């Protein structure tokens, strides 16, 4: 907290409302005075309260755990709520995440995309037939396994990895690092009784793990620092092995 005059920040923001197409997409600049500890959450709210009530963006938790506020910050996907302005220069450019349906301005519908991915990959525990008996003691899980699951379960579905993915931008049905990470997570879970073959059916093609071009933008931008590079490489080997299995059996001539 020194006495140097605060910086004037210029935020140049993408503006477009698909429901009002008569106004074509444009960039609009706003000036705010930087404050101590200012994040893009604080700066954008200040703009909306003082300068432009029509500006659209999304924040929910404002604590980096819900994933609502992902956007392109100087061209790079990231969470606006946990980006301190002091980490950026005085000229800041903000744009909505690509790959997702635009709601307006900086607001995109990641929910729709995530839900479709989730339903396609069935990202929930597939228990054995007969369901769960609440009166029975739960099966125990090794702490190391629980920790390994938690490591991958930290994903907040913000969409940064999808926005940073070359394949996802070209191939609409690609499940993205978020989807591949989910499958890696459920594969670790002893309560999920899906087999390697079941997982192969879900991600053993070009819309799944074989669509990845290994550019690994996902890994670079993940705000939770998930080990996406390792997980994708591992899943690809696993699925390649899985894919070879039936042909080997056929090769046996049975």
């Amino acid at each position, binding site marked *: 907290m020194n006495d140097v005059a605060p910086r004037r920040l210029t935020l140049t923001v993408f503006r477009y409302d698909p429901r009002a197409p008569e106004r074509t997409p444009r960039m609009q600049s706003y000036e705010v005075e930087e404050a101590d*500890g200012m994040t893009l959450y604080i700066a954008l709210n200040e703009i909306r309260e003082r300068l432009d009530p029509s500006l659209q963006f999304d924040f929910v938790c404002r604590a980096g755990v819900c994933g609502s506020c992902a956007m392109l910050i100087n061209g790079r996907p990231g969470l606006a709520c946990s980006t301190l302005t002091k980490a950026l220069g005085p000229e800041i450019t903000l744009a909505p995440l690509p790959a997702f349906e635009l709601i*307006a301005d900086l607001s995109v519908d990641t929910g729709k995309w995530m839900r479709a991915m989730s339903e396609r990959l069935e990202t929930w525990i597939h228990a054995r037939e007969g369901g769960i008996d609440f009166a029975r003691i739960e099966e125990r899980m090794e702490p190391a396994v629980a920790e390994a699951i938690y490591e991958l379960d930290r994903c907040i579905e913000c969409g940064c990895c999808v926005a940073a993915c070359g394949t996802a931008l070209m191939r609409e049905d690609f499940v993205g690092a978020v989807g591949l990470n989910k499958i890696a997570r459920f594969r670790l879970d002893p309560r999920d009784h899906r087999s390697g073959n079941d997982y192969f059916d879900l991600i053993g093609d070009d819309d799944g793990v074989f669509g990845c071009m290994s550019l690994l933008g996902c890994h670079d931008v993940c705000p939770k620092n998930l080990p996406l590079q390792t997980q994708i490489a591992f899943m690809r080997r696993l699925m390649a092995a899985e894919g070879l299995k039936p042909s080997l059996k056929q090769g046996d001539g049975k």
Partner: protein
Amino acid sequence: MRDLVSGALSACIAKATVIATGGAGRLYRATTNAVICEGIGTVIALETGLAALSNMEAVQFHPTGLFPSGILITEGCRGDGGLLRDVDGHRFMPDYEPEKKDLAARDVVSRRMLEHIRKGNGVKSRFGEHLWLDITLLGREHIEKNLREVQEICRNFLDIDPSKDLIPVYPAAHYTMGGVRTNPTGESPGLAGLFVGGEAACWDIHGFNRLGGNSVAETIVAGMIVGESIAAFCDRPQNDLTVSMGIIRDFLAREDAKISALLTGGGDEDANLLRIRMQEIMTEKVGIFRTADKLATAVDELQALLAKSRNIGVRNKSRGANPELVAAYRTQKMIKLALCVACGALARTESRGAHYRDDFPRRDDAQWLRRTLAIWKNESDTLPTLNYEPLDVMRMELPPGSRGYGTKDDHIVHSDAPRRAAEVEATRKRLVDADRFAVQAALMPYDHLLPPDLRVRNERIDGSN
């Protein structure tokens, strides 16, 4: 409902409606809650004029909100051995709570922190005063493994390293113990078919002070019990609906008129300013320490704000996605909810859990072992109507006694409490050879309140019953 993207209003006709919109931490300036925790679902129930809100004055403040943003720093920090320190680096909690020290109940620690700051021991900053949370003594390895989120929050929001630096903290509104009054199935007694689950409900799981970890218990248990109850409610033919189209049309027209009034009614009040003022009033006068004077002023000021909120105007006239319009109608609703909190707190002349009255520091079971019920009778009212519902001590399994608060707990005893305590003890003696199910059935039967699937006996780790 209003579609936030298109702005379209639509009516959903359903046998059962569930409100699961969480708490209302945003009534206060500093809160651990998300931006959307504005209590809007709770107010939608209140605005029916039929569903009552219960114990809204019970608001919990968490001791370690990150300062100044309020982002939650988990209790696990202190659970693992972290300490609270003042401007001189002194660990002050043992001075106030020699027994439980830094791990006293949340409401106790929050009060002690404010008390300590008032004595001149706070750390001054340009945003106001705060205290320090010190987890440096836990070591980098422990923090990186067990408190990784804390490390992330400190790095992202303050650019500090908690394994080396102290974390600035200040109590922040955290949990709304009050909510829509429900019966054990999660249904509002005042409005059939309205179900409420989680923090939005007052389902009697937390009393006046939620304990750490019990929000998870509530989520899971409410999911199982309330969820099953809703399904059963919908299956019962007597709950089939016959609704007049006229009622639906009138309701939609009324809601549409409210939106129009905000857009084109010529109002000149700024919703943001009203909301900030409401948060200031709530924080300063309906916060951690409460007195009759402050609360009475708060009620007056909030009433004046409510009147102003009926004259809000918005600059952006779009009926579609319009964040300013959303802030406008939500602010109107939030001020109503703030009034329910303030009026309940003013009327309750005792201290109970998180509700602390400087002028009535004792818990008074003789007069106040009863639930506050707030309803909003008419849209034009400027205050909620409060009613009270006594609790039946003679049906309790654990009659109210000392709750082990601080060093002294000299609450005013309810006349039934000793009688019930003796009765419970006699029952336990009489059934000394019976199994725990028989004892439970004799003291406080609850099986009949559960969905049938959940009435079975659970398998136990030790193989016993």
